[in-house]
């Protein structure tokens, strides 16, 4: 018990001193996950909206696929991205393996189905409400998608934050494609896993505290946003 108490104190000390190692790892985590979520937003939200509004063969199948992919274990995503990026893989020429770029790719694959699925659900509800009138106003298919994305902006921000939460907290995929290399591809989750197994509890605890705080802040923001939007726009 004394060991844990001492470890907690040292963790706190490292956080307050802005320990270089902690800062480096946190910064890389944020850089990788924010990039992945940005790409996931640009691709996933319109993709979900198109699935909601569009009428094409295979629409149901695509929606089911996406929902299934939402629950993919991150290690599986890691293995698939690893194979794609490895030297003999289809994207091997990019030379991304064991770089932050590879981790971004893995996290995009991880958050895209989640964000697209939430987007599809949210936009579909709005579409059901507006479809007939937008048709009566002769909105094109694409103009409808843009109008719906804008109309659902507050709910979609929740999708973005959900994506960020998943990206920040997953460990399996970035471990496999990034390799958890010190000063290169070590992020919060992989560092926590490694340091805990090595017995460096202070570092693991310090990073764990940061990660927990980030996740709490994300969820708090999502909640506050929903409350604000409901009050403002009904």
């Amino acid at each position: 018990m004394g060991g844990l108490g001492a470890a907690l104190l040292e963790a706190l000390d490292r956080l307050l001193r802005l320990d270089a190692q902690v800062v480096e790892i946190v910064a890389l985590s944020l850089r990788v996950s924010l990039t992945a979520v940005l790409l996931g937003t640009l691709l996933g939200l319109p993709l979900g909206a198109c699935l909601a509004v569009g009428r094409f063969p295979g629409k149901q199948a695509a929606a089911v696929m996406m929902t299934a992919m939402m629950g993919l274990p991150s290690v599986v995503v890691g293995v698939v991205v690893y194979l794609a990026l490895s030297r003999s893989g289809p994207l091997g020429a990019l030379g991304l393996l064991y770089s932050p770029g590879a981790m971004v790719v893995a996290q995009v694959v991880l958050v895209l189905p989640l964000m697209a699925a939430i987007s599809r659900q949210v936009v579909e509800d709005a579409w059901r409400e507006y479809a007939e009138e937008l048709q009566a106003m002769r909105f094109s298919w694409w103009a409808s998608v843009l109008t719906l994305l804008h109309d659902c902006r507050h709910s979609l921000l929740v999708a973005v934050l959900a994506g960020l939460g998943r990206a920040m907290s997953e460990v399996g995929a970035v471990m496999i494609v990034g390799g958890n290399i010190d000063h290169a591809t070590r992020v919060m989750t992989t560092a926590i896993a490694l340091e805990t197994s090595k017995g460096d509890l202070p570092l693991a605890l310090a990073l764990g505290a940061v990660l927990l705080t980030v996740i709490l802040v994300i969820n708090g923001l999502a909640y506050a946003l929903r409350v604000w939007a409901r009050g403002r726009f009904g």
Partner: protein
Amino acid sequence: MSGLFPLACKAVGFRPNGQEVLRGVDLVLGGEGITVVLGPNGAGKSVLLRMLCGLLEPTSGSVQWGSAAGPGREVAMVFQHPMMLRDTVLANVALALKAHAVSGRERRTRGRAMLARIGLEDRAEQSARLLSGGERQRLALGRAWLTRPRLLLLDEPTASLDPSGVEAVERIIREIRTDGTKVVMTTHNLGQATRLADDVVFLAEGLVREHAPVQRFFARPVSPEARLFIKGELPWHVGF
């Protein structure tokens, strides 16, 4: 003149999964004035308006919009429960202009001018979803009017409004007519029909039972169904 008229329904039938809603509607409408479609609940009035807007296809027969290939942007429709985007009143009133390739700045200018005409100018920056039913109807009318349609279809524009709300909406409808837009509307308010209509179409049992100038329709209805309907004694009024 515009090519939308005469607007003609030729033996229009509508039988969604076997249920016979319209059995052969023949109707010719000119490009002026207000046509009020009357008929009991379930007669197919809303279905007919949706067909005139091009939102529903007849099962048999056809709708012809004059010499036009189909209902384009010159046809607008206001629904019984108009949609409101999660946005300001101004953004909502200017919405339909988005399909008309109008710049954002011009949309706002024209939107504000329209809000003044429908008496919502001081609500411009409020959320449209927080408006009352009557204010929503006015907003929806303004939204449709803003695109200067040649044909405006209104489905029960004053259902569940209080007398002053009804009056405000009727005033706007008259102005729209004066502006040169043909209006086709449904209502269950016979007083409203006498106040607004130039001609009345009476729909019952899937057919146009009567199409007459408003005075003649109310003074000397020809069909027995219309006579009973006007007296409020139509048997299927009390069905269910």
